[in-house]
C-alpha cells in the first residue's frame, strides 16, 4: 500500500523524511528528561527551545507564546476552557455550526454546566453572516471560537474581520487553525487572535504532538495540571521527539509556503477536469476563499462510500462526508450546515492534496474516476433531481 495516491491530507499527512530524521535520535540516543539536573537530560531544554522558536517563527509569534500540546483536540479544549476560567463572570460562548467535534462537543458539554452557546449558521457557501455574529455578541461573551479553515470543504473564514468585531465586545478570540497552518501565511503580531490551535500530523509531523499559541498578556490556566513543564501551562514530561519533529515540520512548512501555489494549481486542475468531464458534479462551499489544497465535490445520485471503495481499488485515498462512511447514519454536519440537497450530500468526496502530490497522481485520478462514477450511476435508480419517489417527503420509508 506504499505506492498509494494519497489525497486525504486533511485527515493526516505523511511524515516528512527530514522530520523523521530530526526526531529519531530523541527516540534512541537522547532519551533523557529535560527536567533533569544532569547534562544528559538537561541539555534537551535547549533542543525544545529551538523547536519552540521554529514553531513561533511559522506563526509570527514570540517563543514564550507557544505551548506544546498532544494534539489539536487538546489545544482547542485548553484554549476554550482557559478563556472561560479567566473570565468567570462571563457565561456566553460563540462558535459556528461547522467546527470540528473538538470544539462542538466541548461546547455542548459546557451548555450543560450553565454556559449559553451560540452556533453561528453558515450560508450555502459555508460563510457566516456578520449580522448574526454581531447580534450574538454581548458584553457577557467570554470567548468566540472559530476555525480558520474548514477541514471538509476547505472554506476559509475572514478571521481578522471576525476578530475585529470580537474585540469590540471585549471577548477572547480562539481560532482552530489546524487545517490552515502551513497552507496560509500567518502573523500573530498583527492579528486579533488570542489563542490559536495547531496540530503536528496535519503538517508532516507525527501524530501525538501539537501546539497552542497563547497571546502574551492573556490569562491562561492549564488544562493538564501537573509539573512545571511549559512554564506551568501544560503538565507532563515533554514529548521531546514529537516537539523536535513539530519544530522541524514548522521550519519546512514555512520554507514551503511559496510552493503552496503548485498544490493549488494541481487542485484546480483536478477540480476543473472533474467538473468538465463528469456531468452532475458540483463543488461544495466557497471556491474563492478556500484552502489551496482542498476540494469537496458532490457527485449526484450516488453514495460516497461506494465511490471511496471504488477509488481504493486503484490505491487512491480520499474521504467522504456521507452517512455510510461515518457510521452515524447522518451525513456530515458541515455539509448539512451548508444546506446542500440530499442528492449532493450523500455523494460528496473530499480530495486534499499535499506538497508531495504529483501531476501524474492527479492525472491517474482523472483517468479512473469517470468510469467509477459512470458504473455507480448505472447501478443507481436515480438519474435526475425530479424523480418523484426520491424526494425528501419519502423520508417516511418503505412500502
Amino acid at each position, binding site marked *: 500500500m506504499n505506492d498509494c495516491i494519497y489525497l486525504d491530507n486533511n485527515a493526516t499527512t505523511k511524515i516528512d523524511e527530514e522530520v523523521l530524521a530530526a526526531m529519531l535520535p530523541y527516540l534512541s540516543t537522547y532519551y533523557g528528561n529535560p527536567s533533569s539536573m544532569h547534562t544528559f537530560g538537561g541539555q534537551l531544554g535547549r533542543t525544545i527551545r529551538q523547536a519552540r522558536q521554529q514553531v513561533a517563527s511559522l506563526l509570527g509569534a514570540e517563543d514564550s507564546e507557544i505551548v506544546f500540546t498532544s494534539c489539536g483536540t487538546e489545544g482547542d479544549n485548553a484554549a476554550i476552557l482557559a478563556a472561560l476560567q479567566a473570565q468567570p463572570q462571563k457565561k456566553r460562548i460563540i462558535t459556528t455550526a461547522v467546527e470540528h467535534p473538538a470544539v462542538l462537543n466541548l461546547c455542548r458539554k459546557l451548555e450543560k454546566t450553565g454556559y449559553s452557546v451560540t452556533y453561528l449558521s453558515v450560508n450555502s457557501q459555508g460563510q457566516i453572516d456578520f449580522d448574526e455574529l454581531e447580534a450574538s455578541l454581548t458584553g457577557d461573551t467570554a470567548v468566540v471560537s472559530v476555525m480558520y479553515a474548514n477541514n471538509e470543504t476547505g472554506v476559509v473564514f475572514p478571521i481578522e474581520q471576525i476578530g475585529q468585531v470580537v474585540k469590540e465586545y471585549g471577548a477572547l478570540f480562539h481560532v482552530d487553525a489546524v487545517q490552515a497552518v502551513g497552507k496560509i501565511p500567518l502573523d500573530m503580531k498583527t492579528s486579533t487572535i488570542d489563542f490559536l490551535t495547531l496540530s503536528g500530523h496535519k503538517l508532516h509531523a507525527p501524530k501525538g504532538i501539537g501546539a497552542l499559541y497563547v497571546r502574551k498578556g492573556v490569562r491562561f490556566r492549564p488544562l493538564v495540571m501537573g509539573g512545571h513543564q511549559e512554564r506551568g501551562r501544560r503538565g507532563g514530561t515533554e514529548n521531546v521527539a514529537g516537539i523536535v519533529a513539530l519544530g522541524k515540520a514548522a521550519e519546512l512548512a514555512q520554507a514551503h509556503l511559496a510552493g503552496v501555489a503548485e498544490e493549488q494549481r494541481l487542485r484546480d486542475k483536478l477540480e476543473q477536469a472533474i467538473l468538465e468531464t463528469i456531468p452532475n458534479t458540483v463543488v461544495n462551499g466557497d471556491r474563492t476563499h478556500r484552502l489551496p489544497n482542498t476540494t469537496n465535490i458532490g457527485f449526484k445520485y450516488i*453514495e460516497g462510500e461506494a465511490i471511496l471503495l471504488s477509488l481504493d481499488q486503484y490505491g487512491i485515498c480520499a474521504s467522504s462526508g456521507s452517512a455510510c462512511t461515518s457510521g452515524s447514519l447522518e451525513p456530515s454536519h458541515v455539509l448539512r450546515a451548508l444546506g446542500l440537497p440530499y442528492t449532493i450530500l450523500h455523494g460528496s468526496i473530499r480530495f486534499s492534496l499535499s506538497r508531495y502530490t504529483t501531476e501524474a497522481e492527479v492525472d491517474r485520478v482523472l483517468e479512473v474516476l469517470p468510469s467509477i462514477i459512470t458504473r455507480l450511476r448505472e447501478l443507481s435508480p436515480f438519474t435526475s433531481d425530479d424523480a418523484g419517489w426520491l424526494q425528501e417527503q419519502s423520508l417516511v420509508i418503505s412500502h
Partner: protein
Amino acid sequence: MWDYTDKVMEHFHNPRNQGAITDKQEGEKVVTGEVGSIACGDALKLHLKIDEATQTIQDARFQTFGCASAIASSSALTELLKGRKVEEALKLTNKEIAASLGGLPEEKMHCSVMGQEALEAAIYTYQGIPLDTHDDEEGNLICRCFGITDTKIKRVIRDNNLISAEQVTNYVKAGGGCSSCLADIDDILFEIAAEREKGVEVATQVWTETNPPTATQTAPPTLTNLQKITLIQKVINDDIRPILAEDGGDLELFDIDGDLVKVQLKGACSGCASSTETLKLAIEATLKDLVSPLLRVESV
C-alpha cells in the same frame, strides 16, 4: 474502515443482475418493489419477473443507491430469488441475505433489511395487496428522523433476536438521527424480552404438565448434557460476549447445573447494578432461543 467480507466486496465490484427488466413473455408479470429514499442515504428498486402459472420468480434485477454493502446486499438478494416460488420468497429474511454474503458489519445490517423490505413490497404488489395498508405503516411512529414505526422495530427485533437499542439502530436506523427515541426503543425491547419469557413459560408448562419432553421429541431438539454444555459455551462466546464487549463488558460461564446456567458478569457489566437484571434477562432470552427454552440464567 468497514470490515467487509470478500464476498461483499466481490458483489460490490461485480454486481449480479443490475438494471431493470425490460422484456417479458406471455404469462409473465413484472413487478417492482421500492424502498428507501435519497434522503435516507440508501434506496433500492427491486424488479421481479414472475411466471404466473408456476408462481416462480424467473428473473430478479436491482437498481441501488447506497454504499458497498447496500449494493452487495441487493446483488446477493437477486441471486437468492431466482427460481424461487413466490410464497417461499416471501419467507426470506434479512438474516439470510446477510448470511449469503458471509455476514455484514453490525452497523450495516440495515442494508439487508432494505433488501427484505423491497422484496416484500414487490411481492405484495404482485399479489395486489395495497402497500400503504401493510403492517409496517400502521402502529406508532417511534423514530421521527427515519420514519420508523414500532411494528417494524418489533419485527426486526424478533427476526434477529436483537437485545439492544444500538442493534435496532444498526438494523433499521431507528434512533440513529436525533437519538431522542432510544428510550422508547428500550421499552419495546423490554416488552419483547418479557414476551419471550412468557412464551417460554407457557411452553414449559405444557410440556411438564401434559406432555413432558422426551428423548424422542424433535422440537425442541433434546441435547445430551455434553452437547448442551458445548452449545451454551458456543452461544456465549459467539453471540453474547461480542455484544457485551461493545459496551466494555464481559461474561464468564461459571457453572451449569441442569438447566441453570451460572454466569459471572465482568468488566463494565459487573459494576452496573441497575443493568444486571436487564442483562440477565437478555442473556437468558438469547440462550433460550439458541440452545433450549428450559434454560435459566443466574448471575453469581
